[in-house]
């Protein structure tokens, strides 16, 4: 069964689904069969889809298309794995949630030893040799999804699962429980589950899937001493529309990068930003220690036992087929646009000093900064609405206070994600020549811009576009502008 599915999948992906001319660069085999669009299955009562793409923007767009176009009474399972990406919730702030600078630098080779639990099973992918991986660190995609909740990291060692159902059947735990049943089954039979090790997976009160490890020896390895520890292995997020409910999560299977996630998800501006919207809750995480295909097969099995479709097909969706669908592409354009990623950020205030609204004591600033330097920005939808910068070192000081006002006013209406380099932005905003090196460099650091000595590091908006331009999806969007 599984094999025939795979074969069908292959045919599906390679079948020309749109006129050839659109895909000059891709050579497609001609086939006598009618192309079977995955959309032909949208009316079935229980549908199972697996994406063969690892593009986070495309996978979320396929998912959104399924949410909007699957039959209102149907239940849909969609499984996919993304290349390295940081995915923020619908109403989150990337400047607060993410170390944008680290994100731009890409993913260095995984650290050794692997931060996985217990001895990994023999079948787990082995870490790449360092010399092979370090040449060109792949950029990490920054994605704002449409569902609520907090920020997560994705890579090839995770599996994303997603269930779409009618609103009356919606329950925040129901499908997390489904995944838990799949995990339990796998862990009880898996080669990695050595006797004496007890790993219990369950859904917690935050609707996350966690693993209780009863056999976690403390660091000294004192014989026989058992410590209890709980780790998150999959989160949950939801999107509820008029006619459909979506629940999805990311299950950590065998990610090589868990040791790096903490740094990626810690912004240097954290101590200075007060944001409306949703802040992430940090949880200790760990890998379950399973392969992606065995996880997917087990989840499919549990889904089938819940919704029938015992002999129903799994539909594999490939990049070409998905990109041939106009609605998918429309969603994709929205998700990849900097105005979505950054421009949908809820109102926030950045302030170098305690304010009535945000009285926290501030972290110590770099000592390069002028002693009296202060800055406060109120940013709505990525655009500076109010600015107050003072204490800069002007070369001619006729009247510092009014020079501050002129400079601050010139900052208003600038979009934060389009600022390329704060040094030049401040210089241009100032009515008289100003020494903006130190302050500009510090603000660059705060907002994720790389300060390069000769030139600007480029705006965040460009960084997001650059990170996708080298992918198949990026090239497609370029060609079909």
């Amino acid at each position, binding site marked *: 069964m599984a094999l025939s599915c795979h074969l069908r999948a292959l045919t599906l992906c390679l079948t020309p689904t749109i006129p050839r001319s659109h895909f000059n660069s891709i050579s497609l085999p001609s086939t006598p069969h009618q192309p079977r669009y995955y959309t032909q299955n949208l009316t079935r009562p229980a549908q199972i889809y697996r994406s063969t793409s690892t593009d986070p923007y495309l996978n979320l767009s396929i998912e959104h298309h399924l949410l909007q176009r699957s039959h209102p009474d149907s239940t849909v399972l969609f499984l996919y794995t993304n290349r390295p990406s940081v995915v923020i919730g*619908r109403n989150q702030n990337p400047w607060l949630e993410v170390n944008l600078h680290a994100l731009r630098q890409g993913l260095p080779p995984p650290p050794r030893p692997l931060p996985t639990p217990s001895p990994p099973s023999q079948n787990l992918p082995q870490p790449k040799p360092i010399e092979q991986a370090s040449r060109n660190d792949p950029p990490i995609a920054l994605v704002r999804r449409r569902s609520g*909740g907090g920020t997560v990291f994705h890579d090839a060692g995770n599996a994303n699962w997603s269930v779409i159902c009618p609103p009356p059947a919606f329950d925040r735990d129901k499908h997390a429980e489904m995944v838990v049943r799949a995990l339990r089954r796998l862990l009880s039979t898996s080669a990695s589950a050595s006797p004496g090790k007890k790993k219990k997976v369950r859904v917690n009160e935050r*609707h996350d899937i966690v693993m209780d490890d009863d056999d976690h020896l403390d660091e000294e390895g004192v014989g026989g001493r058992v410590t209890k520890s709980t780790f998150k292995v999959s989160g*949950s*997020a939801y999107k509820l529309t008029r006619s459909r*409910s979506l629940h999805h999560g990311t299950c950590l299977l065998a990610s090589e990068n868990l040791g790096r996630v903490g740094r990626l998800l810690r912004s240097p501006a954290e101590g200075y930003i007060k944001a409306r919207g949703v802040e992430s809750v940090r949880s200790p995480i760990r890998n379950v220690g399973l392969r992606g295909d065995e996880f997917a097969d087990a989840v499919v099995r549990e889904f089938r036992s819940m919704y029938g479709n015992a002999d129903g097909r799994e539909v594999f969706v490939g990049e070409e087929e998905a990109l041939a669908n106009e609605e998918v592409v429309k969603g994709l354009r929205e998700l990849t646009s900097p105005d979505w990623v950054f421009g949908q950020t809820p109102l926030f205030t950045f302030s170098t000093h305690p304010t009535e609204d945000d009285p926290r004591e501030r972290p110590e600033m770099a000592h390069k900064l002028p002693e009296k330097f202060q800055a406060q920005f109120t940013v709505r939808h990525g655009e500076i609405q109010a600015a107050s910068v003072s204490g800069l070192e002007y070369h001619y000081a006729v009247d510092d206070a009014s020079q501050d006002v002129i400079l601050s006013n010139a900052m208003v209406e600038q979009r934060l994600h389009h600022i390329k380099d704060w040094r030049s932005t401040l210089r241009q905003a100032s009515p008289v020549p100003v020494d903006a090196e130190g302050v500009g460099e510090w603000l660059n650091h705060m907002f994720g811009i790389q300060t390069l000595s000769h030139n600007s590091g480029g705006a965040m908006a460009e960084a997001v576009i650059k990170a996708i331009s080298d992918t198949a999806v990026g090239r497609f969007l370029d060609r079909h502008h």
Partner: protein
Amino acid sequence: MASIARCLRVARPTAFSAALRTSVSRTIGARPFSVTATNEIRKYTREHEWVDLSADMKTGVMGISEYAAKQLGDIVYVELPEEGKEVQAGDAIGAVESVKSAADINSPISGKITQVNLVLEEKPGTINQVAEDDSHGGGWVAKLQVSEEGLKDFEALLDTKAYEEYTAEEGEH
């Protein structure tokens, strides 16, 4: 608002309808400052939005029902509709986030958004406290200029009693 009902089991259906009954009468009673208070009619969608139509049938105020607010749990963010936008009944015009869920707010009737409740930007939890209050400081979401089509949409909505029965039924499942 999606029908988030049933599954979340915050309380028993009887408790819901009781709460609903008292709250609705309270909101309607306590409206001395509202200009159009005299003869406005309130109706509900099956997706749990409410809308008040003014006596002259030209303007409306809409929001999320108390029943839905209770089901959704603590609302931590409200994505407000866009002022000046022409909307059709059923269009997603905004969203609320609670317990990791982004739930669409749908326009109950067709018309044009004339004002949004900026209080919700600062205090999204207002919806949990006074979801069906259309006064200043209340949990209303948007004001609309009602189109002719909007009047027809309005006719098709549930009145207070029908909505009460509908939610009681939904809770029983």
